[in-house]
Each structure stands twice: as structure tokens, then as C-alpha cells.
């Protein structure tokens, strides 16, 4: 499976549930490695009932159908454009009293880049989601009960949102942010079989 992906000049990921590792690769070269704190299947279920989800077969190649790397972007646009003025003309118009030094620092303040989120979902082509998170859902009764009440209230108001089942990869916050931009449409994730 990997040989087929590695023939192409793309970045892909390899998820190894047994070693709890997510690797970023290209041409079979390991570019980066992220340690996982947990791998779980997350489904939305009523509080006091539930059913075990049927997982896809492994090994498999999952492809991201829509990812936050495509959608979580800031858009900037000047309000209007003024006619081009060459630097020479500008100098003629506004004579500099002293010669300017070669810039060595941030002459113009760069647009601040937003920090990537620490929890996000990517939709996979098999109908599942890949949930990247630094915190797995709570498994104690009171937080679960409060979450159920909150969600019930939202649904009563027509604001509830159903999400498909997800394979959740728990990792450190910095790692969640580090791989955020790789979660783009078309990125392939090779999932190795569990022993």
C-alpha cells in the first residue's frame, strides 16, 4: 500500500496504532514523527445506552475529503487599490531628509498568523472523521451528564449537530497544532493493522 503512495511526490501519513505513532512521510522518508497519547473511537451516543461502532478494516488508506488545513484560513483584502507609484516617483514626491538604512528588522509589522487550534476534525472519504485532540472525551459520570444536558438543551432549541463517528488521536497540544496544516483535502493516511 505504501509503495503505491510513495510513487507520487506527495506528503502522506502513516498511523501505527500498535506503536502509537503518527508519521509524516514522503517517498517513504520519515519527515516527522508524532507520539500519540491515545487512540479511541468516538461516537455520539445517548447517556445511558450505546452500541459499539463497527470499525473499518485495516490496513487501509484513508483520504481526507475535507480538512481544517483547507478551511481554517484568514482572509485579508485591502479596501481599495491606489494607482501604482514607482519608488523613484515616491522619492521625488516626498524627499527624504536623511538617507534610509537597509532594513534589517521588521520594517512593516507582519500580519499575525493565527495559532492553529488544538482540537479539530477532518472528514475522511469513508464517511468517518479523524479527530485530532489534546483531550479525549470525559468518561466520568458528572461531566458526561452535564455534557448530555447541554447537548439536549441545544437540540431542543434546534441547534444540535450530529457528527459522524471519529477515530480520535490524542496527542500533546503542540503536536495537534503542528500537523494542522497537513490535514488538507487529498492527504492520504495509511493505517497499519493492529496486532
Amino acid at each position: 500500500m505504501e509503495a503505491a503512495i510513495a510513487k507520487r511526490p506527495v506528503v502522506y501519513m502513516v498511523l501505527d496504532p500498535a506503536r502509537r505513532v503518527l508519521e509524516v512521510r514522503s517517498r517513504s522518508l520519515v519527515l516527522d514523527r508524532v507520539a500519540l497519547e491515545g487512540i479511541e473511537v468516538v461516537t455520539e451516543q445517548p447517556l445511558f445506552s450505546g452500541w459499539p461502532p463497527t470499525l473499518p478494516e485495516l490496513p487501509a488508506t484513508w483520504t481526507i475529503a475535507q480538512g481544517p488545513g483547507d478551511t481554517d484560513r484568514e482572509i485579508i483584502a485591502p479596501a481599495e487599490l491606489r494607482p501604482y507609484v514607482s519608488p523613484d516617483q515616491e522619492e521625488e514626491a516626498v524627499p527624504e531628509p536623511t538617507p534610509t538604512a537597509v532594513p534589517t528588522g521588521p520594517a512593516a509589522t507582519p500580519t499575525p498568523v493565527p495559532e492553529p487550534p488544538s482540537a479539530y476534525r477532518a472528514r475522511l472519504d469513508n464517511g468517518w472523521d479523524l479527530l485530532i485532540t489534546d483531550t479525549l472525551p470525559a468518561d466520568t459520570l458528572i461531566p458526561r451528564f452535564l455534557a448530555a444536558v447541554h447537548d439536549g438543551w441545544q437540540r431542543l432549541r434546534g441547534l444540535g449537530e450530529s457528527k459522524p463517528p471519529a477515530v480520535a488521536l490524542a496527542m500533546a497540544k503542540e503536536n495537534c497544532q503542528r500537523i494542522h496544516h497537513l490535514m488538507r483535502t487529498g492527504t492520504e493516511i495509511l493505517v497499519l493493522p493492529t496486532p
Partner: protein
Amino acid sequence: MFTDILPPELEEEVARPPRRWGAVLFVLFLLAIILAGGGLLVLARFGRIPTASPFIARTARDGDPDAETLRRRAVQATAALERVRPNGAYIVVDSYRNRLRLYRDGDLVRNAVCSTGTGIVLKDPRNGRQWVFDTPLGERTVERKVKNPVWAKPDWAFVEEGMIPPKDPNERFDGDSLGNYALYIGDGYIIHGTLFKTLLGRRVTHGCIRLGDEDLEFVYRHAPIGSRVFLY
């Protein structure tokens, strides 16, 4: 003392013990608790909460091949992967941590701080045309190398500054911004120098990879044309 002057029918009323308001309030309180609790239970029953369960996947059966078949397949796969792996000099760019690493035959020979794309989208207010300032992902190759490069500023460079791009192509040339060397990796993406050294290590570019002077010269001298560049 007043009972002496009360008529007999009222005497009985006064002698009756006071009403148990405390008990009534307690019962009301209990009722409120039960109603609120019931309401919460109903809401909780409506709700769907994320529930985690162990990741236990089914292993796809491939006709249960014998050990010899499995061994042969493994050897073939290893050979196929070995064929596509890079040899000689290659560059790896980590666009989150803003690091450029130069390897030769798998050994790290230079680890440099760089600047990569912001990921921001710029929109032209005249026609809605968009540019995404991403450093591309995947594998590219060094297509050509240039000393003292001149940058032909594309339209976005003017739009970003709030200006209409000039019609005269000569107005687009900039001999200062790219530094002393440039390694072109296709589609207008370049590994080049920068005037703004203090911004190295940050995501500030329009997709190109900026390096400091010494690192740029090292990479220019040690990464020949055809070197593979892995960007992630």
C-alpha cells in the same frame, strides 16, 4: 392576658398551634428539586455525547497467504520503497517549526532557521481573485540556481501593498529582496535570502522559503540542481 377578654369561640382559635410553614416550604423545595432533576434527566436523554471506546479494528483477510508469499511480498515492498527514497543531497523543510534541514546520504549536514508561508489568503478587491500564501507540501526539485537573483514581482505583491499592479513589466523588477542566491523549486517558489533577518523562524512569507545569508550560501553550494526538496 387577652384571653380574658376574648369571646369563647375565639379562645379555641388562639390556643391552636401555629401553622407549619417550614414543613410546607420544605415540601415545595423538594417538589422543585424533583421537577428540575426530572427536566435535566429528560434533557440528558435527548442529548448525544461523545463517547470513547477502544480502537479495535478488524484485520482484512487477504486469503490467508502462506508464509512464503508474505515474505516475498515484504521483500518486493521494501525494494519498491528503497527505489523511491532520496539519495545524495536533499532538503527537508518543516513549515510549522520553520526549519530547513540539508541532508547528504541520510546524514544531516545543515539545520537552518527559515521563514515559510503564512497560510493567509489575499483577496483582490477589484475582482475577488485570491492568492493563498502557503508553502507547498510534498516533493519538489531544485530546478535552477541563480546568484544575485532579481525578483519579478507578481500581481499579489502590489495588491498586498494596496496598489494596482503596473502595466510596464520593468516596474516589477526588484534586485534587493531575494538576497545573494536563489534556488528555484518550481511554480514560482524559491529558497532565497531576506532583508528582514529578525523575522526568520516565523511564518511570514508568501510561500517561498527565506534563509539567513550564511545558511543560504551553504545550501546554494551544497544542494546541486536536481536535489529533492521535501516540504511538510
